[in-house]
Structure formats: structure tokens, C-alpha cells
């Protein structure tokens, strides 16, 4: 079954899968991992605009990732958002992938994606097969039953801005509310028929700096072992505001508030950044095969903090 939604009211079917860019869904449709009826939301009018307000910005759910990454005003105001938007996935995926879709991606778990394997997120298993099986790329912050990292880099970035989301039928929710606490077998908390329509970014502070790094085995275009988003405001030799979110290490994107607290009010010297980065893994609880990620989290947090301090820009010279 297939419906092409003309307005938001066409979206509210129970038991459907929404399709915008298709970058995630098409693969799951091909392998049979996704099998619900489709609602095509890609042509709902009015959702594909970036609206800059004096006190913030609104991004329609159908705005593409590329558009966000390449937007000069967003680069200047929200560097910690535009950096991942220029580096995640592939250029082609950023071209078609939408901001709403990238937040609602399903897990990249090699059990979930493999049509031969059972997984609770597909509804054909009771327990996470990766936890007792191979979780080489799994979490090192063990928040809940699923041990595969959440894929949304943009989710991490939005956490650093305390962004909120407009969701049909639910009004405004926070990004943390979108993802919950990781204790359920879900990739997000939206119910079928609910849809993100817009992302709202609060006003940036003067002197916003951003940092974003992905630790991968290749140079580009790979799901990260660890990724870190840093938002930093430095004023008069002191860190006035620090936000650090981490991905690739838990089944939800989340903030390292212990690192943030240690940074705020301190000068951005190497020794202070190092001391704060050491707190990054306080809550870590690695699995047998993911101990290696713990050291990587601390290393990448430090490296990304240094990037935000030393460069901080939201534009990448080579992004086209």
C-alpha cells in the first residue's frame, strides 16, 4: 500500500512507514526489513524551507542535509550543526536525505539490517542478538537492551543547541524526548502516524564556535566508531558555554554534561580541556568487545574540543 501525502493530515495513518528522501528506507524495503505500508511525505508543501529568525532558526523537515551544511548563515550561527551536515554519510546521501529523516533513521546494526538475522527491533526476537553475539561496533555506554549505536550525527548536533522539534499530534518536543533514554527497543519515540515537521533552533550566542570529528578507519564516508560534536562560546579568556554530545557509543545520542560542567568557567587551555575530557567516560560501561571505544571517546572529545577552540568555524573549505 502506498499513499502520497498532499498535506500533513494524510500522514496520520497508524502502522505506516514514512518516506521522504528514501536514503535509509529503500534499502530496508529491498531486503524486506521494512514491510509496512508507505506514506510518501516528500511532496508535502511548505516543509522544505530554512527560516532565519532574529532569535533563532526554523528548519523544515524536508530541508536537505546538504542545504543545511552549505547554508552560509547557518554555518556562521550554528557551526556545530553545519559541520556534521557536511561530513556525515556521502555527498549523494546528504543531497537527498532530509533533516526530518536523518533524525528518524533506523539503526545500522548488522543484525537488524541482515534479513537472515532476528532482532527485537524487527519484532522477530526477544533479546538483542548482538549483546550475546558480535558487538564489535557496539556501544560502550550501555543504556538499554539494544547495543548498537544510534546513527544520527544530526541528533547529536541538535542536542548541543537545545533544539526542539514540532511533531504532528504532539506539539513541541525536545531532541532528548525524541530519543528517550535508550531503555526501549526503539530508534526514536515517534508513534506511527506522527511526523517531525520542523526543527527549531534557539538564538545563537555571540561568538559561537563548533567542532565535529568522526573517528573512522577510513578517511571519509564511514559510520563512525565514535563521533563528537562540540559547541563552545569563549569570551574574555573563559569558556562561557560548552556543549558536548557524543555518538557511535550509545543507543541514543546524548550529552556529556560532566565534561560541559568541567569546562564552563575555565580558560580553554590544553590542561583544562584534557582534565574535562578525562570525565567523558565516567558513565561508560563497555561490553566485552567494545572496551577499545572507551579510550577513543576521551581522545576524540579532547581532539574535538581543541578543534572548536582553535578553528571553530562551521564551514569546510572543500565542501561544495
Amino acid at each position, binding site marked *: 500500500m502506498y499513499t502520497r501525502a498532499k498535506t500533513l493530515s494524510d500522514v496520520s495513518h497508524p502502522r505506516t512507514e514514512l518516506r521522504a528522501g*528514501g536514503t*535509509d528506507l529503500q534499502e530496508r524495503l529491498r531486503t524486506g526489513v521494512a514491510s509496512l505500508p508507505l506514506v510518501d511525505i516528500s511532496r508535502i508543501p511548505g516543509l522544505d524551507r530554512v527560516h532565519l529568525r532574529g532569535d533563532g532558526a526554523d528548519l523544515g523537515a524536508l530541508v536537505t542535509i546538504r542545504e543545511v551544511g552549505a547554508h552560509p548563515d547557518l554555518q556562521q550561527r550554528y557551526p556545530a550543526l553545519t559541520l556534521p551536515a557536511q561530513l556525515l554519510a*556521502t555527498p*549523494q546521501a546528504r543531497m537527498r536525505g532530509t533533516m526530518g529523516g536523518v533524525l528518524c533513521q533506523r539503526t545500522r546494526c548488522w543484525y537488524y539490517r541482515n534479513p537472515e538475522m532476528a532482532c527485537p527491533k524487527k519484532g522477530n526476537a526477544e533479546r538483542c542478538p548482538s549483546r550475546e553475539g558480535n558487538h564489535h561496533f557496539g556501544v560502550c555506554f550501555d543504556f538499554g537492551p539494544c547495543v548498537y549505536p544510534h546513527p544520527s550525527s544530526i541528533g547529536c548536533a541538535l542536542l548541543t543547541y537545545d533544539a526542539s522539534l514540532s511533531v504532528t499530534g504532539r506539539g513541541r518536543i525536545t531532541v532528548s524526548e525524541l530519543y528517550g533514554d535508550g531503555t526501549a527497543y526503539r530508534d526514536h519515540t515517534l508513534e506511527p502516524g506522527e511526523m517531525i515537521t520542523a526543527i527549531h533552533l534557539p538564538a545563537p550566542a555571540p561568538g559561537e564556535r563548533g567542532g565535529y570529528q568522526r573517528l573512522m*578507519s*577510513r578517511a571519509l564516508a564511514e559510520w563512525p566508531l565514535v563521533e563528537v560534536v562540540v559547541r563552545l562560546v569563549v569570551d574574555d579568556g573563559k569558556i562561557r558555554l560548552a556543549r558536548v554530545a557524543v555518538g557511535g557509543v550509545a543507543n541514543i545520542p546524548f550529552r556529556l554534561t560532566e565534561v560541559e560542567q568541567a569546562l564552563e568557567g575555565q580558560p580553554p587551555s590544553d590542561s583544562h580541556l584534557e582534565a574535562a575530557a578525562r570525565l567523558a567516560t565516567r558513565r561508560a560501561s563497555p561490553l566485552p568487545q567494545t572496551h*577499545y571505544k572507551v579510550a577513543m571517546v576521551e581522545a576524540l572529545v579532547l*581532539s574535538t574540543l581543541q578543534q572548536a577552540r582553535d578553528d571553530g568555524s562551521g564551514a569546510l573549505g572543500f565542501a*561544495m
Partner: protein
Amino acid sequence: MDARETKVIAAEALINGKRRSLRFDARAAAAEVIRDQLDLTGTKVVCAAGVCGACTVLIDGMPATSCTLPACALDGAEVRTIEDMDRDGLHPVQRAFLAHDGLQCGYCTPGFIVESISFFDRWREKHGKTEPPRDAIAHALSGHLCRCGAYVGIYDAVAAACRGDFDAATPFDYPRHEGPEKVTGRARYTTDVRYDGMLVARYLGSAHTHARIVNVRFEAALAIDGVLAIIDVLTDPHRVARYAGQPIAAVAAVDEATAERALAAIEVDYEPRPFVVDPAAALAKDAPAVYPEPKKRPANASEGPIPPGKWEGNLRTPVLNKLLSTQRSRAEKRLASARAGAPGLVFVEGIYQTGGQSHTALEPHCCVALWKEGHLTVHTSTQSVHLLMEELAERYKLRHDRVSVHAEYVGGAFGGKQGLQLEHTTAVELARVTGRPVRLVLSRHEEMVFGGYRPLTHIELSAVTNDKLEPLGITMRAYGTAGVAVQSQSAPWVRMTYAGPKDLHDFDVTTNTSPGRPMRAPGGPPAFWALESLMDELAHRTGTDPIALRRKWDDSNVRHGLYDWAESLPAWKSRGPAGSGTGRFRSGVGLAIGNWFSAFHNATQIQLDASAEGITARCAVQDMGNGSRSVIAKAVAEGLGVPFRDIHVDIGLSSHPPGPNSSASRTTASIYPTSVEAAEMLRKALVAAAKKAGLKSPVYEPGGVRHEGGFLPLAELLRSLEKPITVVSKKRGGNSTFDLLGAMPSGRMGISMFPKMTGSVAVVSVDVDLRLGRVHPRKVWLGLAAGRILNPELARSQAYGAVIQSLGAALTEERHYDPRTGHLLSANLEDYRIPGIGDIPPIEVFFDESGFEKLKGGASGMSELAALPTAAALGNAVFNATGWRPHDIPLRPQRVQQHTAHLLG
């Protein structure tokens, strides 16, 4: 509401400038519509998951992967595919790809071209006619993967196009004969072959990792409308599936969806058995046996026959081991006394391991088969057109002229597509029972599961020397794991490289995983990873220069020129002592060597047909990106003194005179001298024809015939021919197999050996990021001594590709299984990480062409030789940078960080 129920959508799109009405299922991807409905097969589907970019098209001016693009998005859109890129003649980017040889097999090329053209337009708009930095090109093309490793040429091509080198449509030179077909998407591969009434075949794979197949019932599946046939394809004589996904049955149906439904309806009764997937666990005392039956019929991971072996559980000892060693007891004694601390002896030992490396050629294993009036036609992606024809004829009891094998274009092979394979017998048998053409194309998942991989190794190695640095002994115990297959040999390469006594053993450790297959220099890269890491350690331990030590130990003079060259490299000369750097980033330089045999196929013949239409060279050889067409065209063109592109080359068809398998690096050494000979024969025939036509004292001169009345250009002479001329080069004669160890197959495979080994040396410089555990190769130098280089651009492309595949094995590529079910988890191009363009450093290739004058044609193959030394040179560079000696590859970040992070303090 049935979610699987199809809903047909009607859409209109502007495709390559033409308005087209389309109809498709709402769930379909645009790639399916583009390839199957519009027959625009230049757009290739490889990963089908948005990772590799082969299917990239422009939609409303911007690139998108059409495998993840909903077909519904085509409605009202303007789409341009590769077929439209030369609308106004070749685009500057296409010309640049040709001139800089930014392609090999050509399967990824359409995607790269479309993306590069889009980048070119945006770059020009923003920066004018300037050259983009390497980083910008890497980012723009990061959504594309090339398995041949054509990235060096791609960088150069995109840079040259952007800075304006190819803006003018003036004539230009390019080295790859069939390049224009590949950069325009016109090259038709097996996956692009379409016949009317063609059926689609699919495999049912074993749901269990080890199980006896008690019963299989097809009735329910056969009752489905559109299912035409189902056959049993389990080849195991004991009716046992020994790895997860092993093909049990195959379905032929009218389309993919119907075949899919049929697979689900096949009923299989399994009797599951215990299994083992980990090689170390397979050697445990109570490990489940992969072959518990007394009569074992393991698959073959090598290119030769399987010699007898002794089995203890999953450990197999081939009898061949006796032949591997030389002065064995002397090696053992020296090792024992060195171990006991005898004065004057220096002893090093280590355990070195390599992971399995998947071939994952971008064109998967595939076959289109049809029978017509007792004639069998097979289109397939193969590296052995001629051999496959012979094997099919034998299997189906047909005369050779009743079998046609077509492989005009082959989208990569790397050793994994040799001879008669399951995809052939499956498609052929389904075509026979249905009486219709049948197409079987493995999905990427299947290709990753059973398309082949280089076996895993665990190699225990030691070496002894004295204060004079004499080669006193090498001992080796190599355990290879090729899953359910055997014969992954590493020891022969160690025997053939260094002098001195040797005690060498190869073993197989079987597991319940899919069979490994021969891969580019089978057994070689793991052997040289171990051997050359150990030699570096020996140099370090004795305080010797690594090149000086190798000069002492090397059993051959083939590398002398390469050692001189390596010693002259500034990067090598200026390297510091191991582990002497400070800070987060440590730099190092390493070196390693490779050694490989020089082979040819003695039955290869080249046919030349000369007529008014021109000159066509014919041979049942194939071109998988290795440059067969170009070698033939160049040899014939030089022989006749005409431009390279005036020679037509018609290969990839088994009815032509026999050609070599493209394996054992023997393609060039087989087709070059025979092409030269054929050209010589044609010259004589043309002179004879000229004489017959009444010309006085004709002699052949470059480009035509000189006679008393003047000069007759070749083209005119051809036009005046009374009847076409055909010449065929002679067979090289006899089976002069110089068989180095008694291990190499001869006979039908037809490997003849030239009695001198070829040599390689690699130097690699790296930066190691201690904080993140990342190894960044900064530059690779590769020196090759393999005789004459006939076509330098293509030889360099081959060498680059070998280096790049070695970097993948050394840094990123790793196969992962589920320990509880035995299924392969890294069964896609997202979880199995082959190098991308951003991972490729500048690569410099040096050829020492001396030393092979006695080989007919003077040119040896080098595709395997080039694949040997890079990994160990990189490992040795990491040692030089950090003081930590890597033993296991791949050097993924966690492995490096685990061993080096403490250096940061």
C-alpha cells in the same frame, strides 16, 4: 491490508532529454526503473544501499544514488544518466578520465563520471578554471568506491578537467583501448545482458551453518504463478550444508519478486550439527568437525589440484609439506642452538596474522545462459573465457563449437572468477529445464558471503643469522583458513625468496565458513606480511640497514636495481631510528620486498583479420581491467606501423583462438608475443597480396607497403584486397611447464613458467595519530622488476590498484561473523570497508625493465607481484614511527591505539 501488495504508479519524467512515461511499483528504487524499464544499463547497481555510488545519476541537476532514490521521485523530475553525459561529444571530464586512465574494469566508472561532472560544474562556477586541492576531490567523490583501485588516475583526471586541460575537443591520447565504451556507459557487462523471455534465477541459502539436508520440498514453491523451475544445487556428496548461506536450491521465475516468494515457499528439513567459525576454536580438542565424514571432499581455495593430506579434526597437513623445506634439519638445528643462546647467533621469531580479504568485485558473480538447438550460450563475468568453454563442453558433453562463452566486459575478478563455477551450472541447468534464457546475478549479500575471500592466516616464523648477517635458517608454520576449503598456501613464497636452510610447513584449519578462493597472488600477501615484518625485526635486532640485510639474504639478483632505487629515495634516506619521534603524530618509513613467478600460457593464439573494414585482432582472452585489449592493440599497431586505435580488438568470446586465463599474472606474457608474431605474419601476407595484385618488389614499411611505384598506405591496400586475409599466430609449443614445486597446475590451466622470478620493493611513509589510533599512509613507492613494460600507463594503473588493495587489507578490511549462528555479518559494503578515494596517498611506481631479455616478448606479468610488499612496508613504517611492531592486520584504529596510546604519556 497486505503491505507487500504492489501498487503500480504511473509517472512522467524527462530522462536524458526525452519525456518518458513510466510505470513501477511504489516501493521500487529508481535504479530498477532506469536499468530494467528504460534499458539504461550504464547505471550500475553494486551495493544497492547507497554506499558505493555506482548507480549515481543526476536528478534535477544534482547527483543521487538511484538505488536509494525512490522511483516515485522520478515523477516530474529531470534525470540524466551516464548515457547522456556525452550528449555534445565527450565531456571534458570523460576525456580526462581517458587520458589519465581513471578506470580499470569500468564497473564503477559511470558513477564516478556522473559525480565528477557535477563537481566539475560546481567547481567551475565557484572557482573558474583552477585546480581543486586533493581534499576537495576526495570529499566530492567520497560516495564512490572502486575495487580495482583506479583512484590515482581519478584524482589526476578530475584535477586536469577542472583546470581546463580538456576543454577543447581536440584529439588527445589515451592508453586504454576500450576506455570510450567505459566512460560513456556503453560497455555492456553480463549484468546488462537482456534477452526476450529471460527468467530470473535466485538461490536459496542454508539457514543453518552446519546441517544435514534431510529433505527439500519444492511443490509449494512450484505452485506459485510465474515460477518455472527449481533445482537442487547442493554439491556436497553427503548432503550437508557446511556454512550459513550455502546454496541449496535455485529458482527460475519471471521476475525478482516472484523468485523471492518462491524461495520463501521452499521447505527444507535441516538436521543441524554443531559448528565452528573461529579458526583458533576449530583447533580445540573437542571442536566440532567441519568434515566429520571419513570421505572428505573439501572445496579448493587454490588454483591447483588438491594433493592428499592428513586430517586431525579440522587440521589438515598436506603431503606437499615434504617438498617445501630445504636443508630442513640444518635449519632446525640452528634454530635450536640460537634459541638456547649459542654465541654469535641472532634469532628473531614472531606470530603474524592476516584477516580474510573479500574480493568483492563490483560486478558480482553472474551468468546468463540459454540453449538453442543444442547450442549453449553463456554470458558471464569470468577471467577464463577459453577454459570455461572447455569445462562447459566437458560437463554437458558438447563439442567445443557448440558452446559460446561471452565475457566482453568483466567488472573485476581478482582471482575469484576462474573456470566453471556454481553460477554457471545453475543458470545453464535452469535454462535447460525451462527452455528459456536464465539470468543469475548474486546479490551483494551473497557476493560477500560466498563470492570469495583471501584465506586468513596465522603464521609462526623465525629466522637466524650471525654477525656476518648470513642467512642461517628460516622456519615457518603457516596455518591458513579458507573456511570449508583447503590449500591456502603461504610457505612456497618463503622458500623462493631468501637463501639458506628452511624448515617450512603449510597447514589448513577448516571452519564452517564459506570457501576462500584464490585472490591476486594466492598465499602471497600473508606470506610477505609475515616474512618481511620478521626481516625488518631482524634488521632492527642486528642494527643493520634493512636493505643491506636483504642484499645479503636475497636469493636472486632480480631486485638489485630496485634496492639501488629504494636507497636513493630521500624519504628512505632521511628516516629516523625506530620510535624516535615525539608528540601526537609520529612519522615513519618502512620497506618490504615481494617475489613472484613469471608465467605464460603456451596455447594462446592471436588471430588477425584484415579486410576492407580494417584490421581486427581476435582471441578468447578477457579484459577485467587488466588491459588485455590495449596490449594486443598496441603490439599489432606497432607491428604494422599504424595508430593504436586503428586496430579493432574483439575478445571475450570463446570461439576465437585460445587465450589464457587471466590468472597467475600471465595474460600479458601470453598475448603480447603472440600478437607481435601475428602482426609479423600479417605483414608477410599483405606483401604477398600486394605482389599478387601486381605491385613490383613490395616490402612492408610502417604504415603500408613500399613498392617500385611508390608507397601504398595500409588502409588503401586493405580496401584493394581481393579477399580478406586471416592469420593466426602459432602455439608456443609443448607444455614446457617449468614447475617450481610440483605444486603448480599445468595441463588445461596451462601455466608455463619462465625460470626466473620477478621482484618488487615497496617503501611506505606513514603518520600515526597516537591519540586516535589512525595510521595515515603519506606516500607509497613501488618498484617492480618484471621485464619490459609495454604500456606504462596501464602497468602503472595495475600497480596502483595492487597497492590500494594492499592498503585495504593492511588497514580497514575485516570479515565479521555472528559467533552464535555462524552467519556473516559484514555482508555489505558498509560493514566491509574497502578503501575510498580519501584513503589513497600519492603513489609512485618505478620499473626496472632489465633481466627478462630471454623471455619471449620480454614482458612478464606484474599484477600479483605488485600486491605483495605494500602491507609489510606499511607495518614496518608503523614500527619505525612508533617502536611498536604490528603483528596482525588489519591495523584498524583500535588495534593501533591499544598498542601505541601509552606513548603519548
